[in-house]
């Protein structure tokens, strides 16, 4: 039995147990900061920043729309890092990071799509159009939905983690395509935020406006592009670790 325990210890990652302890101080602090940040960001976006002369109040969506994409970018980036590190170390904590990244990233990508769609209704006069950037973002969301399908389709846990890591790395190509497509395809009507928009962009996001606009964008970038995804990722990782811990306890029980 002691030999068995020794093996279990060498096979079970030790830090799974670490993450199942009560809420770490840092995470508690981060949660408070994030909640305050979301409130501050909403205040900046909805009240502090001036109303756009051309577009009116609907432009305020932009303060969440663009930062949410960067939140998704960060989370999907975490999936790539998790995937690469998993393939190198075969340590399941990296797989936990990868799957958490996909779920959080999906949430942010959907926020990005929905806010964009609401904005487009009055500005482009349609909810959705098959513009290159919109199309590639839809592809991106579908790719990560396929990631979840693939994961659920594999029973062997080792194989599931390995294949998910490979797919998570490959899927990031669609994120990059979404990000760069307006630089290389001038026929999109989606405006560029940084640098000049394509000539036929309709409805601008440009920051020529008051300092209030850039301040509101800056705060929301910090909140939606960094604080919120990181905090949510951390919680999601904890949740996955709890689940793994329960599995491990079950396995140990069966071994007796």
């Amino acid at each position, binding site marked *: 039995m002691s*030999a*068995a325990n020794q*093996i*279990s210890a*060498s*096979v*079970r990652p030790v830090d799974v147990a670490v993450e199942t302890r009560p809420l770490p101080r840092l995470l508690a602090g981060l949660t408070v900061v994030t909640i305050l940040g979301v409130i501050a960001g909403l205040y900046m976006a909805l009240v502090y920043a001036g109303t756009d002369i051309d577009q009116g109040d609907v432009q305020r969506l932009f303060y969440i729309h663009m930062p949410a994409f960067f939140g998704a970018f960060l989370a999907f980036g975490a999936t790539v890092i998790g995937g690469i590190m998993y393939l190198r170390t*075969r340590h*399941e904590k990296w797989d936990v990071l990868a799957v958490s990244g996909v779920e959080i990233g999906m949430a942010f990508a959907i926020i990005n799509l929905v806010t964009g769609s609401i904005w487009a209704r009055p500005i482009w006069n349609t909810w959705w159009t098959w513009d290159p950037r919109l199309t590639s973002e839809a592809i991106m969301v579908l790719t990560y939905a396929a990631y979840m399908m693939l994961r659920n389709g594999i029973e*062997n*846990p*080792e194989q599931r983690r390995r294949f998910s890591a490979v797919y998570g790395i490959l899927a990031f190509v669609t994120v990059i395509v979404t990000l760069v497509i307006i630089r290389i395809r001038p026929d999109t009507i989606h405006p560029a935020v940084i640098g000049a928009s394509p000539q036929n962009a309709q409805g601008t996001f440009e920051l020529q406006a008051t300092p209030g606009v850039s301040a509101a964008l800056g705060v929301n970038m910090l909140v939606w592009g960094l604080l919120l995804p990181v905090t949510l990722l951390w919680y999601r990782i904890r949740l996955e670790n709890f689940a793994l811990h329960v*599995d*491990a306890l079950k*396995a140990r029980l069966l071994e007796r």
Partner: protein
Amino acid sequence: MTAPDAIIQTHALVKAFGLQPVLRRLDLSINRGDYVALLSPNGGGKSTLLRLLAGLSKPTSGRITVGGWELPAEAAAVRAQIGMVSHKVLLYENLSARENLRFFARLYNLPRAEAEARIETLLKRVGLARRQHDLVRTYSRGMQQRLSIARALLHDPHVLLFDEPYTGLDQDASRALDELLAEAHDEGHTIVMATHDLNRAATLASRVVILARGAVGFDRPSAELTPASLAAAYSEVTGMVTAR
């Protein structure tokens, strides 16, 4: 630790699939010319061990050396001296026997003339010379398994690994396989065969190893064994009545 004649050595070998460790710090040393029968209950790790030795699977931790080469770092060198036959035939159904062997000869980079001569002798030896141009899917299970052995012998490997080669074979085909294995052993090939056939293990092999709980639970030269004493030892070591 290093026996001079050892061709296969594992040290503290661990292989886990997710939460389940299948091999737990397995130490095993196999000498050149041994004919080892590897027994364990189903899921007991004999297939896993063979796949590790063949370099098809990477250990979770621990060391494996084959012919002095370290796995997985020197996998290509190890592969060149290993031949494997499994319960799947590892052949292309829509190619003839000769075409199958030609393809694998190319993968092992055998010179063309040498390969053709070797294929000729092997086909004769496994009794398939007359049907060498027929597609493999028209073969009986026994013929396919014999061809599979020819494939494994193609590059004249030092070590032959057999993973339950008798699965699905009738009596005649099994007997033919017994002879081929004995012949290969006489030629000096080292053989490791995973099986659940206690009789074959006791009578054909030169050494019997039983895996239990992921480690070597029993290891004896078969000269000291009878089928009956092996069966008794097996149920004692594994807690199971038969090898099934």
